[in-house]
């Protein structure tokens, strides 16, 4: 789960391995603070999101300062061969625009469109209010709509 989520948030990034290890160490060190065992998956997902956010922000700053060359994501290397054509097209669009999005929009889009989480859970994982998540998603979805060549944004379900 951690490997998969980290990869989908930062596909092809050489930092993914360190990110995964960080998340497990943090989780194991703070397991005693988990009040509800049933919430383990969501709690662990929050850790991954938080750590990925830090790394994405740092990477974006370095690229803007000219200290790092951007390495575009190649969606064709990410999407499994068994993906139905419509799913593959949407995933292709998501990962084409991902690097151009600010970190919070990027994470919100992946959690919503790829992980398939409800808005409330996206907000919980990102430790943001529902209103803020909706704003982030709205901006990201606008970029996605343009990439998909659609006339209007996709519908949202709670």
């Amino acid at each position, binding site marked *: 789960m951690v*490997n*998969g989520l*980290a*990869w*989908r948030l930062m*596909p092809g990034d050489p*930092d*993914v*391995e*360190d*990110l*995964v*290890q*960080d998340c*497990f*160490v*943090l989780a*194991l*060190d703070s397991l005693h603070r988990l009040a509800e065992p049933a919430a383990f998956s969501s709690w662990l997902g929050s850790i991954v999101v938080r*750590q990925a956010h*830090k*790394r994405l*922000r*740092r990477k974006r*700053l*370095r690229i803007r*300062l*000219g*200290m790092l*060359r951007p390495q575009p994501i190649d969606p064709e290397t*990410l*999407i*499994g061969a*068994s*993906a139905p054509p419509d*799913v*593959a097209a*949407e*995933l292709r669009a998501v*990962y084409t625009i991902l690097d151009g999005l600010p970190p919070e929009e990027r994470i919100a889009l992946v959690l*919503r*469109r*790829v*992980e*398939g*989480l*409800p808005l409330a859970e996206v907000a919980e994982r990102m430790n943001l209010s529902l209103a803020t998540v909706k704003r982030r998603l709205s901006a990201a979805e606008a970029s996605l709509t343009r990439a998909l060549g659609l006339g209007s944004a996709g519908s949202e*379900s709670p």
Partner: protein
Amino acid sequence: MNDGSSRAQYVERPMAEGAQQRQWLAIAARRAQPARGAWRWVFGSLAIAAVAILAVVTAMPQLGSDTGEIAAVELSPGVVLEAGEADLDVRLPDGSQVALQEGARLVAERAEAQEVRFSLRRGSARFDVARDPTRTFRVLAGDVDVRVIGTRFEVRRDASAVVVSVERGIVEVRRGDELRRLQAGQSWSLTEREPSAESEGAQSDALETPGEDGEGLEGQSVTGSTRPAGPSARALFEEAREARRAGRDREAADLYAELLRRHPRDGRVGIAALELGRLRMDVLHDPQGAIGPLRRASSSAPGESLREDAMARLVEAYDASGQRARCRESRARYLDRFPEGVHASAVVRRCLP
């Protein structure tokens, strides 16, 4: 209905055989490291042992190091502190600290209750002086006399210039009858100029204060001397970035180094130092050469995340150059400041025997 969960199954991370097992081993190894409190205890014990050893070492006329070991020193006139091919940190009995960059040579001329006086013969030394209003702390660099009461400052001397930079507190710089008081963030320099037909042996000095927008002055002076010749910091920085983007890494490194040399107080120094450190590590395979710039970037890079990067790379540079004591010290410093830092899992694996 959003069926995104099925989309996740189409974007899975490729894992080589045995990768997960290696991952768990790495996680277990990291969690097996002793707690940071224990590290402090170990370092504290080492410091006590070092002081005991130094009671013997101070009998030697010269104390230097090529291994980057940290030393506490009992001063007496004539003691010479010299950093060889590695930086040298020294702790004085009153708690003051002196950090000599590689190649620096500092001679203790006076060590009394009312006055401590050093002579910087060459190179660069940073002083973190414990506050004591009853004691004068002086550093002489040629005919330049730097006096402080509880502050942190750096004095750099080479064949052509003396530069005094203040990080904290107030420093008096005297030269003959001239006296300047520098505050935190200010620097003063004295450069030797080539003899000219108009003024043979002319010297110039300049007082610099970083601009409010962090751009940094480029040769602004107080006493009417001219700007230093050569490209501006902005020009050097842009050329270096262009070279970097084009993949001309060696050229980029040279340009960053020139920026640091010509414009040591410019606001771009932090980024330039970090980039130079990274280039020397990754492209030029010169970890020893990366240490100086990375140390600089650790304190002057803009933003906490870049300073964190610099500190992590500094640990790597010490490790790669075999300076174990420095490596452990810088690792502890990083983990103390960034316990959940993005580089923590890599840093904690460094400096192992």
